[in-house]
């Protein structure tokens, strides 16, 4: 890597940089995508609820924060909720957090009939609001880019296992996995279409890439065997359906610790992986191995500053994972960013710098700046 902080960064747009990396290509330097929900809201000085109630405010926050922090991807509302709510789930909207399920919709098998499984994202629930935000983001980016979209927009897609868990409640979901795997399969089968339709509609409205996530199939939650037989096939089915319908590049976020199953995770055929609190060296090595065997198509790894060091994965770490962004100093961010870049780019995969899970609420602007600074300093391609 050449140390040349400002070299050619003006020649390549964030759009070209981010989409290039998702394609496995080198542009000018490593991009930064830390899933900037809180960066945008905190820079604008508004709560999530205020931005949810006023979509134009959310658009303004996203655009202005990208201009301020200079990261390489922006997001729509990107959250669990709109689809589940349209299916019939009751949500609650905290003042400054994403919505949560207020009460499980499915308590017995009979409740399956209460769910509205077939959705129209243009009409049902709050899904049109999300599509409105995407269209407005696109308009605004084109206007500011004088006709050129200079920053990509990423949307969200919940895996069927997550949607099923949201409908039943997380505890009940795990009990269903243990007691009645056939029901778990039926739930995932029926849950898949809602989020697929939402992602397709988001693509039609103008998003450029998608972030698919699963927080209920990690090593923290279920066994490798349950993952392999029950939920991984539905991750793959969901990812392949998105690719078939939209052709978008897909980033999968294995939320939590997936150390014992990364070989299986990479076989769900996403293009990029937004890593959680996991050993970056191991994750990179597994990606290379599964690619070499022809089992996966990993182009890039996104993450995992704040969670990159081995000491953060032993359960007894001095710095709890994901909190370096919030509790560390800019030099900590810079150091971890360099470590991630060296490991991932050293294996000839594209590195996209990011945090663990998503942009950590309450991080200082200096820490957020430090990641972009590190990408410029250590992530230049020759």
């Amino acid at each position, binding site marked *: 890597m050449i140390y040349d902080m400002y070299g050619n960064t003006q020649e390549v747009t964030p759009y070209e940089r981010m989409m290039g990396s998702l394609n496995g290509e080198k542009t000018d330097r490593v991009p930064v995508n830390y899933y900037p929900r809180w960066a945008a809201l905190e820079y604008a000085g508004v709560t999530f609820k205020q931005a949810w109630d006023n979509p134009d405010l959310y658009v303004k926050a996203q655009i202005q924060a990208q201009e301020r922090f200079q990261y390489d991807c922006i997001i729509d509302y990107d959250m669990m909720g709109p689809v589940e709510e349209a299916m019939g789930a009751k949500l609650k909207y*905290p003042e400054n*957090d994403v919505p*949560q*399920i207020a009460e499980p919709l499915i308590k017995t098998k009979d409740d399956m009939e209460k769910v509205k499984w077939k959705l129209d994202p243009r009409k049902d629930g709050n899904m049109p609001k999300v599509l409105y935000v995407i269209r407005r983001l696109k308009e605004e980016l084109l206007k500011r880019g004088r006709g050129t979209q200079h920053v990509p927009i990423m949307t969200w897609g919940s895996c069927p296992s997550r949607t099923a868990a949201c409908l039943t409640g*997380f*505890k009940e979901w*795990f*009990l269903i*996995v*243990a*007691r009645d795997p056939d029901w778990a399969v039926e739930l995932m089968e029926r849950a898949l279409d809602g989020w697929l339709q939402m992602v397709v509609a988001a693509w039609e409205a103008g998003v450029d890439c998608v972030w698919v996530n699963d927080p209920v199939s990690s*090593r*923290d*939650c*279920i*066994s490798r065997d*349950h993952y392999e037989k029950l939920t991984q096939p539905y991750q793959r089915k969901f990812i392949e359906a998105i690719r078939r319908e939209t052709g978008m590049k897909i980033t999968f976020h294995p939320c*939590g610790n997936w150390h*014992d199953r990364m070989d299986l995770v990479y076989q769900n055929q996403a293009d990029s992986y937004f890593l959680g609190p996991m050993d970056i060296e191991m994750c990179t090595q597994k990606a290379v191995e599964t690619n070499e065997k022809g089992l996966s198509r990993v182009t890039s790894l996104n993450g995992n500053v704040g969670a990159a060091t081995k000491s953060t994965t032993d*359960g*007894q*770490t*001095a*710095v*709890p*994972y*994901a*909190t370096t962004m*919030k509790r560390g100093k800019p030099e900590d961010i810079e150091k971890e960013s360099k470590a991630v870049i060296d490991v991932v780019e050293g294996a000839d995969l594209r590195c996209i710098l990011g945090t*663990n*899970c998503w942009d*950590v*609420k*309450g991080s200082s602007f200096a820490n957020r700046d430090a990641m972009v600074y590190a990408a410029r300093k250590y992530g230049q391609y020759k």
Partner: protein
Amino acid sequence: MSIIEKIRKNVFDGDENNTVELVKKALDEGKTAKEILDEGLVAGLRDCGSGFEKGEKFIPEMLLSSESMKVAMVVLRPLLLEGSGIGGTGRAVLATVEGDVHDIGLELVGTMLETAGFEVRNMGPDVATEDIVEAVKEDKPHIVGLSALLSNTMDVMPDVIEALADAGLRDSVKVMVGGAPVKQDFADEIGADGWAYDAASAVPKAKELRAQLSD
């Protein structure tokens, strides 16, 4: 295999129906409720917790073990109360902090503390800080247990501790914190009195802290 060992194994395996039947049988055979609880149910749940730590058991299996224990406790609870088993150790208020909807770990801790003789008020997930303070005023617990699964929400924990101090309640309770991202250094940093790695280790820690309070 003795009947107590069978109970222990059935809790470990998460077999609810068999566990209840075996508990009834053990009582018929003259085993005491305390013996069944400590050497059968709690030991089985602890085995499951060890399996969880080693990566051999996971949340579904932990929940099945916990459910087995819960149904067995329906049979044992009246007998334990007679012997002043429950509530005799102390009182605890448990809550997952505001903004965090995860309560599986909290439930396990609640079950374990109850079986250790604590009278437990489990407030569940996503509890507002002021509600926790109110509950402490009402119940006058010895232990306040706070849980968070998310790195975003663990930072609510110091707010709760501060709110307890503002209400003049901090010295009357011991605050324990736990949850996946929470570690000892964080507990120290925010001024909590204790931290436990898992539900099983929460019990000795709670007892240790309880013993430090005079009332």
